[in-house]
């Protein structure tokens, strides 16, 4: 067993991905030092001297709005190297499908943004956009099987779409219609498709770890080789659930892939304000599991890292950690600073417009498009056709939502238990309701 662990793992994985010029870096056993991680992030030249030492319980006074540019990746993603080769080997049909998924996520959310900001549809409820982070969902899901499990977050529309979610049912749920994924009970934050291994978006930060770990245990019991993926953000890594789940999965070799979408901001607080290390994945470097630190706006890097992590998990070697550095284009929730037909939220007090614009210039979709064309894997015309197909599908999903019916208000006492309604205790006379529904 021992030769399967520690530095040997790291070496073999580094070899697989290519230690020089790799699009993904693999570290393990405390080796995530500056020289490895800074070089490995897709050739990005990162500021190594970011000091995250805090001056007391109140956080790091040296971190200022605008400092997120210190994590900015390069303009283009590498067209050669192990990650590029791994993705190219997936074949043209799949490469275009992944592009289709990224576009669907982007266009669907951008359309919802415009509908929320418009008045005609009177949309309400929470909505947390994933725009700008699509390469992570699509890169991860591209390396999974259909029957693998994912546990998502409040910012999970992209995860659902990438795992094969139906945008008609998603749109209907945003409209709280009875044809929605959750029949109008859940809304944006709780969309779930158990038939596709999508254990659901979740309104509680840090809820994904145990969900994915439990699903992976279920797979172990059945001997099915499925893996569980726990998505989370930089903010959620502060949760005690995080350390609990990662530690136990490492201890028991549970096949979970922890995917940290580090968008550098938790709600309205910069990541560096509350993180004691430059990268979140450094928190767990004492554990004997592979760590992949990748450019989260590079589809090839995310895909290649996940492929390794999945093979590792299916081989019975246990969990791994992937941290993708990325950036949230919009506000934490809702659309403050956003405008109809304009990308990105500007004028927010906890970050600078310059920082937003610089990160938007590293758009994962544009970068992937350029990569496909540069490698001769797709033409502009092919990709434009996909863009148009996606636009039509998104429009259709909105029409579907608009034409669907609201749920019966009295269904409010259903679906809490497997059978029957609960008492309508909001009324003086409560028996009539129960009789009507049963």
């Amino acid at each position, binding site marked *: 067993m021992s030769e399967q662990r520690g530095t040997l793992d790291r070496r073999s994985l580094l070899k697989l991905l290519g230690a020089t010029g790799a699009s993904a870096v693999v570290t393990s056993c405390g080796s995530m030092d500056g020289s490895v991680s800074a070089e490995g992030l897709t050739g990005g030249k990162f500021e190594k001297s970011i000091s995250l030492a805090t001056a007391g319980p109140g956080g790091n006074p040296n971190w200022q709005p605008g400092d997120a540019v210190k994590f900015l990746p390069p303009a283009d993603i590498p067209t050669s190297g192990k990650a590029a080769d791994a993705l190219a080997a997936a074949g043209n049909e799949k490469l275009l499908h992944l592009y289709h998924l990224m576009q669907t996520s982007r266009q669907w959310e951008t359309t919802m943004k415009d509908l929320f900001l418009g008045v005609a549809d009177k949309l309400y409820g929470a909505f947390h956009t994933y725009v700008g982070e699509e390469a992570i969902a699509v890169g991860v899901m591209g390396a999974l099987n259909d029957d693998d499990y994912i546990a998502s977050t409040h910012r999970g529309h992209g995860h659902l779409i990438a795992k094969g979610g139906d945008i008609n049912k998603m749109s209907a749920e945003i409209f709280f219609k009875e044809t929605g994924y959750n029949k109008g*009970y859940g809304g944006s934050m709780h969309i779930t498709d158990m038939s596709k291994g999508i254990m659901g978006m979740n309104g509680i930060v840090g809820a994904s770890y145990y969900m994915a770990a439990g699903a992976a245990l279920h797979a172990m019991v059945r001997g099915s080789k499925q893996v569980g993926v726990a998505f989370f953000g930089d903010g959620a890594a502060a949760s005690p659930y995080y350390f609990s789940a990662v530690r136990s999965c490492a201890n028991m070799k549970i096949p979970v892939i922890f995917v940290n979408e580090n968008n550098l901001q938790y709600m309205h607080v910069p990541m560096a304000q509350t993180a004691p290390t430059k990268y979140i994945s450094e928190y767990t470097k004492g554990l004997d599991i592979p760590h992949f630190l990748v450019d989260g706006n590079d589809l090839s890097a995310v895909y290649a890292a996940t492929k390794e992590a999945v093979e590792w998990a299916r081989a019975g070697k246990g969990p791994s950690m992937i941290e993708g550095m990325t950036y949230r284009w919009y506000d934490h929730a809702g659309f403050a600073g956003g405008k109809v037909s304009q990308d990105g939220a500007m004028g927010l007090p906890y970050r600078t417009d310059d920082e937003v614009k610089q990160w938007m210039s590293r758009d994962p979709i544009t970068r992937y498009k350029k990569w496909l064309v540069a490698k001769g894997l797709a033409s502009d015309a092919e990709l434009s056709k996909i863009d148009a197909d996606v636009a039509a599908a998104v429009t259709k999903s909105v029409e579907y939502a608009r034409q669907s019916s609201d749920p019966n208000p009295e269904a409010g006492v259903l679906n809490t238990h497997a059978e029957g309604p609960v008492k309508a205790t909001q009324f003086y006379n409560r028996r009539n309701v129960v009789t009507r529904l049963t």
Partner: protein
Amino acid sequence: MAKKSYNYAQLEAVAQEMRANADMVFYYEYQVPTATLPTGEVLDLAKEFGNLRTSGRGWPIDEQWIAGAAIGAAVAGSKAVARLPSMAPIYAIEYVQNQAGKIRSMTGGQASMPFVLWQDGAGRSRGSAGQHTDVGCEVLYAQLPGVKVVVPSNAYDAKGLMIAAIRDPDPVVYFDYPEVKAGEQPDVPDEAYTVPLGKAVVRQEGRDVTIVAWAPATVDVNRALPMLAKMGISAEFIDPRSLKPLDVDTIAASVKKTKRLLVVEHGHYTAGFGAHVLSEVVQEVPNVRARRIAFPDVPGPGAAGMMEWLRPDAPKIVDAAAQIVRA
């Protein structure tokens, strides 16, 4: 005395106690403690008291840490307030149940616990669904020995109960529901004052039926009262403000007069705190006609129509009060 927002009144209470207690601490997550008066005067606790006594621009998303650290500071002797967000209404409960509520007793009275859990509440409103709609979790804390619970419903009580909670040597859970913060608020004195723990207030006097409700159900009761008056029903409305200790005397005295009791709550029906109110009253007052209406035992759904139907709102309160009076 400038007109103050509810939030300003609450933060002013904490600030005044922090000024009076040099080692008092105030920890929170993303709810950076600033508020502005209509005159433009800004209250900024992080700036005034610094990073060692506050959470500065915000602490990580780790509610157990925020509550646990404050409880530890309180055992050592600092007055400590920990504010947790609304979607985490019982994240702190394990440490409060096993530590904060028990330490005085377990140590034979040695350890004090000047700890306040400032727990943001959610509300029965459309669009959030499930985890962001919880109301009524105060009953879970009220069940714990050694723990006191208050539920303010206007800016005056919010400030006075906060100061009383901070000055109390025992752990107090202070539930803070956003729904009661909207609308017209009573005047809030500038100086520090207390609203005593365990003292109910009669919001409206009446003869025919006693209505008991606390935040945020008070908002719906306030809407129902004029409708009841129009129907010729004279309702007495009592807001207990503190659930534990509960002012049974004030409620029982009212029901002795009206002989009818309606308890309204936005919390869930089964074992909701209203059940305790009802049980206290019927043990004190003979021949009471009593009824509870409460949010059903379902997580709050997202769709507006379902949520509105489930909410024990003004029309349902009017109907229930009228049926009790007519029965």
